[in-house]
């Protein structure tokens, strides 16, 4: 359901967009060939893009020498990448009434309340082929060249016309390959009907742009067309189906029959060298007919802002040889060139193209400045001489920018300093050489190398751990002496007692037990139950002062009384007293 809604919404959006597309309507006129005979019928189409309807049928101009028959109208709508393109095509068939060169059009059409004009096209009408010519075979190919004497790099047309009046398919064309000759196909092949030697033929016309890179006389060899000639007869029920235009296309591969190859006649070509006389020094090999235009936008700006100089070179010929024009260095501005863009169009009469070059100009000082004209040389085959094109001289009006105004107010030196600073150049490498030798006496020293020599290497690597291990071993041995062991035992006993006292001892009995363990550990005893009298005796026998021994006895008695009186709590300050007495005791014993 959602999908259907989306499709409908998209369709409606497309229709709405059609109205928008109508805002950009254009009309073009096109013929299916550029040459015809008096017996030919030429198809003419008028394409109106940007709308699917017009207010009236087109009005055709320049049709006085032709018999015009309407061929119908078709409209189209395309959606490409979300963009809607609507179009309308009027088709006419025109039959020439006399020979000559005619300009057809423009076609006028009224759409969206406006009158629009199409382009004009040329048509050359020749007399029909005389019937006295010998009968041609039902399939043949003709090659022609529009100009037989050309200059190097000049463009001429090589036209192949494939005539056929039988059912053919699987067409393939082999073009001749000639050194120094370049052939480039112009557009898609055209198909139309004509008469030749009094017989009606379908014609497939292919046009090529031909140019030569080296002067001399050439023979363009035959172009060969291979095909399959389809059988006639044995018609079946399916014939109607296979008579569909799709299957009758000469390029369709749904066919069987006899293979056939036809070849065009060779064509002679004379290529002249470009004249050496008056050849401009900047000539790049450009041959043809060209125009050059330029513009500078904006022409008024402030320092630090940017103006764009655009130069367009357009014309017909070897457009790929249009050179990238160099803009000379401008004293008043920094210049930044854009990548040139070349657009080519392989039209019916040859390759045309336009090269667009752009530069950004950023002026560094205020004033009126002129951008010098740019020059382009080319060889014009029609006039047979070199021509030069020049752009106009543009004037750039520059006002002081904010920074420069401040500078002027502060009476700073002239603006030329700013311009000099802004026109920085890329540093160029002028030469290559090595840097000189090292000559300081210190350069003779061998740093760190002494660490790698002999005993020092081993000492630095293994000395510290060996010394450390020796110290560690010495300390271990020292700790094993009787004095150190007694000292160690005393320290451990006191540490353990302090630790137990810091814990939450529940009563006097626990404190007596902790003290008993201290005495056992300190004096290496094995007392099971400790009494106050025993305490005094042990302390005195181990060298304690009598006052301390008595004090300790009193403390133990106090604790015992508390235990036997049923008071399970510790007497006040018993822990502190005990630790204080033991510290005194340790000093006395030592």
């Amino acid at each position: 359901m959602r999908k259907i809604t989306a499709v409908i919404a998209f369709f409606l959006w497309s229709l709405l967009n059609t109205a928008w597309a109508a805002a950009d309507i254009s009309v073009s006129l096109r013929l299916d060939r550029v040459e015809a005979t008096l017996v030919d019928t030429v198809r003419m189409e008028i394409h109106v893009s940007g709308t699917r309807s017009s207010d009236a049928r087109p009005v055709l101009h320049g049709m006085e020498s032709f018999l015009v028959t309407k061929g119908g109208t078709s409209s189209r709508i395309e959606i490409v990448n979300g963009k809607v393109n609507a179009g309308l095509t009027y088709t006419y068939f025109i039959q020439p009434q006399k020979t000559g060169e005619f300009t057809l059009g423009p076609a006028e059409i009224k759409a969206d309340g406006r009158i629009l004009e199409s382009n004009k096209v040329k048509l050359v009408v020749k007399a029909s082929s005389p019937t006295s010519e010998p009968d041609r075979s039902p399939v043949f190919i003709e090659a022609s060249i529009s100009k037989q004497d050309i200059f190097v790099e000049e463009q001429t047309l090589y036209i192949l016309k494939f005539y056929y009046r039988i059912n053919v398919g699987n067409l393939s064309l082999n073009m001749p390959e000639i050194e120094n000759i370049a052939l480039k196909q112009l557009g898609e092949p055209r198909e139309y009907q004509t008469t030749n030697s009094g017989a009606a033929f379908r014609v497939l016309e292919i046009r090529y742009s031909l140019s030569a890179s080296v002067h001399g006389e050439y023979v363009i060899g035959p172009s060969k067309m291979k095909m399959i000639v389809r059988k006639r007869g044995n018609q079946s029920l399916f014939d109607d189906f296979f008579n569909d235009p799709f299957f009758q296309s000469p390029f369709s591969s749904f066919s069987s029959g006899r293979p056939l190859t036809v070849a065009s006649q060779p064509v002679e070509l004379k290529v002249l060298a470009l004249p050496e006389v008056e050849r401009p020094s900047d000539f790049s090999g450009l041959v043809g007919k060209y125009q050059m235009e330029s513009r500078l936008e904006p022409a008024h700006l402030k320092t630090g802002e940017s103006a764009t100089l655009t130069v367009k070179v357009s014309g017909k010929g070897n457009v790929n040889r249009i050179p990238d024009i160099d803009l000379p260095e401008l004293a008043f501005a920094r210049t930044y060139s854009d990548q040139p863009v070349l657009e080519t169009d392989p039209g019916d009469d040859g390759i045309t193209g336009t090269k667009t070059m752009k530069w950004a100009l950023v002026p560094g000082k205020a004033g009126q400045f002129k951008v010098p004209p740019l020059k382009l040389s080319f060889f014009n085959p029609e006039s047979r001489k070199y021509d030069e094109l020049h752009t106009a001289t543009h004037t750039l009006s520059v006002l002081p920018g904010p920074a420069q105004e401040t500078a002027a107010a502060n009476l700073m030196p002239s603006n030329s300093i700013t311009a000099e600073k802004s026109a920085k150049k890329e540093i160029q490498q002028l030469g290559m050489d090595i840097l000189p030798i090292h000559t300081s006496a210190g350069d003779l020293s061998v740093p760190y190398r002494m660490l790698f020599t002999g005993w020092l290497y081993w000492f630095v690597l293994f000395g510290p751990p060996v010394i450390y291990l020796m110290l560690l071993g010495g300390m271990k041995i020292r700790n094993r002496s009787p004095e150190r062991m007694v000292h160690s035992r005393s320290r451990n006993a006191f540490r353990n007692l302090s630790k137990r006292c810091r814990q939450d001892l529940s009563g006097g009995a626990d404190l007596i037990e902790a003290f008993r363990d201290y005495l056992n550990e300190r004096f290496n005893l094995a007392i099971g139950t400790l009494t106050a009298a025993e305490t005094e005796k042990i302390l005195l026998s181990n060298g304690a002062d009598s006052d301390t021994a008595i004090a300790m006895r009193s403390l133990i008695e106090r604790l015992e009384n508390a235990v036997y009186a049923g008071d399970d709590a510790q007497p006040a300050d018993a822990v502190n007293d005990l630790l204080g007495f033991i510290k005194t005791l340790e000093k006395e014993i030592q």
Partner: protein
Amino acid sequence: MSRVKRLITILLPVFLLISYSVKAQNVQSAQEGFFEANRAYKKDQFQAAIDGYLKLIKNGFENGHIYFNLANAYLRAGDLGRAILFYERAYLLIPRDDDLNFNLSHAKSQTVDATDKLQTFAMNGFLGLDTWNLYEAFFVFSILNVFLFFILGIRLFNKAEWSYYLSIFLVIVISVGALVLALKWYQSASDNRAIILADEVAVRAGPDPQDTVLFKIHEGTMVNYERSEDGWVLLNLSEDKRGWVKSSQLERIVKKDTTS
């Protein structure tokens, strides 16, 4: 016994004095040789300069600056192959010297053959291995080593908290230092690069002048030295460019005595 003691007491200072004076004399003589070679270089007597620098190296004054000067002299004398060889040897000792890097780059730009850079050791960029020389790596490791055991020694007598954390930090740092030193040592030991010294060398399919010439390489090109056999060396530039050349036509950057 007392006579022996007396003899030692007299002879030891004399021996130390003599050895010190000999050493001082050597240094003075080396300095004179160094300045002499430098003067020859400046007078464009490059062969004399080369001889002077080579004599210093032979006498044990082998450092990056002498190699650099020697390479400069070879380059000025038109011997590109030996110039690059000694620049590369200098690079092993003074890799951060800007003059050296400039001149080495300049010399390499003059070689004929376009070859890919030989990758001798996959971890060249690890911890800036390329910018250290082996002696510097060992020196830093030695300092850390002494410092760590000094702190551990202090802890034997005073187990302060700061010494505990400092020793942990030093153990981590010295582990990294040991890794760098080991990699640097491995890099140096596995360095098989060699420089072509002859103007043009035909690389053959086997160690025989009659063997097929596979390709040719030119002076200054860096190659990988694989092994030697009867005065011939098997080298390679890449997997598909291997062959034999005469051992006199190239020299290894890291001098090794192995002949396998």
